């Protein structure tokens, strides 16, 4: 009976961290999405200079371990700008994710047939209007399957922000493990929560993909 009570306390304690994990993930994915779409659009339709810049950005960010990006933001940039560990971590993950997401969206934009742009221009749309109303709505639909992969990765990578002291699931599991000397129980429960979150996220995105599937 006492064991069950302890377990319940443990889960409650970890669930409080789940909100933080979700917060980090949502901020990182949103930042990564907005920056990623802009980068991908610039890469495909921008001037040679802009296109080269986005390619180099993507190359460099993807070559650096995520944890290094987190350290740079927290120990270097957060010294000059007022950033909490939570925000530093979330934005760092967002920057890292933007590079991966830009590759996802670039692939999706390229796979929209070329005739779509021609037809949009032929009815008198400007290049920007054509990208906004014709190309991106199709590209975003095509990007859902690879994007849900990226979403699962960011969700799990959000555990990395524990190194700068953000009390998300993993950090709390570590506290519990240290206090109770029951690492299996603590990390097992953390793993279970991550599994459920990833599973539900993927199910949600699967539904979204079916709902907005592009018939071609």
């Amino acid at each position, binding site marked *: 009976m006492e064991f069950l009570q302890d377990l319940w306390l443990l889960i409650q304690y970890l669930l409080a961290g789940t909100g933080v994990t979700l917060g980090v993930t949502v901020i990182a994915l949103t930042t990564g999405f907005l920056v990623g779409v802009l980068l991908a659009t610039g890469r495909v339709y921008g001037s040679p200079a802009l296109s080269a810049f986005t390619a180099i950005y993507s190359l460099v960010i993807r070559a650096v371990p995520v944890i290094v990006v987190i350290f740079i933001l927290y120990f270097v940039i957060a010294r000059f700008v007022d950033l909490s560990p939570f925000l530093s971590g979330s934005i760092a993950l967002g920057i890292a994710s933007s590079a991966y997401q830009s590759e996802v969206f670039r692939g999706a934009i390229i796979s929209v047939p070329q005739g*779509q742009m021609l*037809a949009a221009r*032929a*009815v008198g*749309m400007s290049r920007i209007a054509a990208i906004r109303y*014709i190309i991106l709505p*199709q590209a975003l639909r095509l990007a859902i399957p690879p994007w849900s992969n990226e979403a699962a990765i960011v969700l799990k990578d959000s555990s990395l922000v524990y190194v700068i002291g953000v009390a998300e699931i993993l950090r709390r599991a570590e506290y519990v493990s240290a206090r109770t000397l029951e690492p299996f129980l603590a990390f097992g429960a953390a793993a279970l929560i991550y599994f459920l979150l990833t599973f539900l996220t993927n199910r949600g995105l699967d539904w979204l993909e079916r709902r907005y599937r592009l*018939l071609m």
Partner: protein
Amino acid sequence: MSDQPILRIDDLHKKYQQTEVIKGISFDVQEKEVVVIIGPSGTGKSTLLRCINLLTRPDQGRIWLEDLEITAPHTNVDKVRQRIGMVFQEFNLFNHMTALQNVTIGMTKVLKMDREEAHKQGMWELERVGLVDRADHYPAQLSGGQKQRVAIARALGMNPHIMLFDEPTSALDPELIGEVLSVMQKLAREGMTMLVVSHEMGFAREVSNRIIFMESGYIVEQGSPNKLFYNPEFERTRSFLGKISELYGENQESKG
């Protein structure tokens, strides 16, 4: 009918890398005229159409749309294209939109029409091509012929002064060609100015006012269908028309 042509092309040239595709082409299209361009593939017919609505920039030569020289520097190409309807061989319908949305997107986003008016106008354009009952279908749910008719309605929705057709039936199964041709024939009867690249000899003979025969970047010969079919000046025209008529059939009625 005024004296001013709707479209005037003067000494047009276009090169892709080293290959010159169009080597000096000049002709006029008058209001309400239906002109069909024929010629072997790779002779620059599609390039010519793309130059006319500036989807491709010509290297040399000038194009006037009514009184506006559209090849002049600083021309607002988006405004020019609003006045030119374009129908592609591959339809190029917007895949994420219904038939009706395909027709209205240009009206709302380019002409800034309000939604209700665009909806009404869009339904009317679909009516014109006989597809009101397909308004809510997505392109993937339409046959090739229906797609092409929606594409025609989309172009008509912008109230163009001239319509360009780039081999509009070449990607269609034979039994679907007739429905597209009869929509085009109806447009011609309504007085739409049309410039059509096509191998449909029946259409050329019965609907067009003039046929232009192009080969390797030049205009070889042009004239009324009667002249080109029965009394061509050049042997090359005769042999090409002979071959193509054998392949595609002379008589449009036979296709329904």
